[in-house]
């Protein structure tokens, strides 16, 4: 399998604080990668660097064989990187359907009846079809999370970064979202999942990377990671 994402020695500082100190990571096409680490370890910062929310970091990030560091976030989205947000950010004045039409219009270039049909298909896959014409600020938490993923899918990504899509959800809801991510991966989309819910990460990931204090401290299969003493120390303390 080819490498779809190459993160090379990325360093990100905020004033005097170093959030990422030399992170390097390769992601294979079609892979399911889990990204874990305690709060403040730099997971969201790393995601922000990959998605382009931050463009002034040191190091290089290559996607699909090309350097993307000079590109802004919307340009990276057009190249095929999509992300969902930890705290859902719906376009609250729009219906669910209109939310999806934004990436269709700006990534795909069209937002006509064909795209509306495609959007309905995406919503059906997510179990949101009946809410298509409801205003997005009336959705429940789990529906908002699903819409986040649906909207990311409307951008037709090659790589989807799911940032704690299951945070705060209850048991059955977690399984729902997890199943959605599995189904998306079956379509060929590479998925990086950031999650705190360990069972979800273990079930989903083929490979897990653990971040702590801005550095990767461990990489391996879910079973290896769980047994790793550095990981245990990072989460539980000394």
């Amino acid at each position, binding site marked *: 399998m080819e490498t779809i994402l190459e993160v090379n020695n990325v360093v990100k500082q905020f004033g005097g604080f170093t959030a990422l100190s030399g992170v390097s990571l390769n992601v294979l096409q079609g892979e399911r990668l889990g990204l874990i680490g305690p709060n403040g370890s730099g997971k969201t910062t790393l995601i922000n660097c990959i*998605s382009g929310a931050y463009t002034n970091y040191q190091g290089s990030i290559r996607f699909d064989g090309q350097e993307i560091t000079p590109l802004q976030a919307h340009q990276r*989205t057009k190249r095929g990187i999509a992300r969902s*947000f930890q705290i859902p950010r*719906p*376009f609250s*004045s*729009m219906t669910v359907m209109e939310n999806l039409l934004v*990436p269709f*219009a*700006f990534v795909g270039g069209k937002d006509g009846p064909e795209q509306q049909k495609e959007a309905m298909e995406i919503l059906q896959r997510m179990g949101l079809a009946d809410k298509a014409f409801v205003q997005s600020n009336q959705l429940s938490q789990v529906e908002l999370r699903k819409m986040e993923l649906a909207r990311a899918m409307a951008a037709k990504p090659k790589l989807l970064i799911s940032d704690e899509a299951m945070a705060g959800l209850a048991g059955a809801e977690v399984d729902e979202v997890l199943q959605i991510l599995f189904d998306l991966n079956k379509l060929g989309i590479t998925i990086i999942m950031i999650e705190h819910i360990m069972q979800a990460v273990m079930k989903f990931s083929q490979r897990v990377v653990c971040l702590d204090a801005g550095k990767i401290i461990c990489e391996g299969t879910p079973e290896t990671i769980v047994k790793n003493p550095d990981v245990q120390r990072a989460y539980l303390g000394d």
Partner: protein
Amino acid sequence: MKYATYCLLIVLGFLGLSVMSSINEYVFFAGFVILQFVILATAWNILGGYAGYVNFGVPAFIAMGAYTAVVLFKSISAPLVVQIIGGGILAGALGLGVGLLTLKLRGIFFSIATVAVVFILETVVNNWRYVGGATGMQLTRPPDLWFFESYTRMLFFVMAVLAVLSVSIARYVQDSFLGRGLRAVRDSEEAAECSGVPTLKIKLIACTISGALMGVAGSPMPMYLSYIEPASTFNLSYSIYALGMPIIGGTSHWIGPVIGALLLATLQQIVTVTVSNELNVLIVGVLLVLFVVIAPEGILGLVKKWKQSSK
């Protein structure tokens, strides 16, 4: 009926109005101001309502249009149409400039920057004798009236055409991909960026169009007054009107600013003449605060709610 047909009918209606001799001249005099506010409110809403960036510096763009017209008129005796186009272009450039400087920052910095532009431009104009400086200058209207009875009637009709054009532009922006992108930016700029919306470019486009239209509203003013001077042209009260009218009318649709402008500008004509200018500012200010607190979607929102509840 198609929208274009509506526009044609409205323009013809205004034309008919302008040539009816029996109508008092004052109607056209006041009508000019009301139409000017329709343009200003519509222009403001393209950036403020659609994108969520609040322009406090409306007089800077009006003045840009007005003083460009003065310079063009004084230097090359430019006809009205050229004055208007020139004013629009330069005011649009001003919008682009302010946007480039501040639209990368948070909304409030853009707003404060627009106030700054008002004062800086006013200071420049105050010290520029070619356009009359702080005391202002008189202007003689050219004799060409086309086929109208009076210059005021002609200006009234020109304003009507400009108003229809402005509203049409706002409608086009709203229904186009530009409008979709602006709404996304307003609702969540981060999510918009990640959905492929080139947020900075879109904001700049909206800011330029908005500024240009405000300049277009200002360009006929020197000919209308036969006079131009900085203090009234740069009056910050224009901002409270240009911002109050769309908010009170409703910011999500192009018809909101039109409703707000027609209502409030007509009220302004009545109150200013019968009581005082200050009282009118007070009324608009109080209405603005009331609507922002109680009915943020404006009159349009109230109508929508009333229609839903009576189903």
